[in-house]
């Protein structure tokens, strides 16, 4: 599923050095579990996002492995420490090999 995947991230634009900020992410994805069958009884193949990572200036914040039991449009909320100004980089890995990326800059001041 490469169509209609849209990552959305809510992160503060400004923080003070060393501050812990809350980040919310959502990506539109149907997360087909591979458990369902269509009306003629064929299994609908699994198609999910299997990994999500968040890094700040190349240092890892959180790394999540997703199983099919994660809901449609995977949502994550977590905390990150912002030691200096820089970029938050979010990456989602799809089963079909696609990688979706989003970057948010955070200023310190």
């Amino acid at each position: 599923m490469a169509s209609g995947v849209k990552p959305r991230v809510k992160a503060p634009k400004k923080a003070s050095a060393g501050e812990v900020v809350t980040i919310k992410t959502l990506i539109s994805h149907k997360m087909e579990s591979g458990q369902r069958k269509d009306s003629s009884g064929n299994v609908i193949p699994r198609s999910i996002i299997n990994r999500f990572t968040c890094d700040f200036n190349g240092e890892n914040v959180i790394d999540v492995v997703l199983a099919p039991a994660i809901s449609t449009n995977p949502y994550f909320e977590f905390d990150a420490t912002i030691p200096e100004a820089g970029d938050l980089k979010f990456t989602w890995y799809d089963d079909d090999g696609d990688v979706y990326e989003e970057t948010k800059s955070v200023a310190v001041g």
Partner: protein
Amino acid sequence: MDFTRRDTLALGAGATAMALLPLSAFAQADPNAELVGAPDDFLAGADAAAGDLTLTAPEIAENGNTVPISVDAPGAVEVRVYALGNPTPGVATFRFGPLAGSQAASTRIRLAGTQDVQAIAKMADGSYQTAMKTVKVTIGGCGG
């Protein structure tokens, strides 16, 4: 695109049939089961005691397709979440990096029916903590 009355009825019938498929029909091996695995794989014989790990989940979830859960495990390096009554119990693995502001995360999960949700945290010193919560589900979230 125009839907005739007949098309609409057929679509509705198809959707209903899919929704009514029983869970037991889905005993398929999950190709990526090892990514999260089962609780015993993660523990590998170690004991998990109750500790600072908290698992927050609703007591009653009306819709098993999106059940909000959150874990908070001060001092953990890794937290795994399992839905023990799902076709594959693994739900998610959270690994916290050096810049994690706290060892806590929230997400939304699918639950096939009323069951126990378990979280197991691996602490920085290699010990394990666990927390369990029973969630009542009115409508299952596995297409069942």
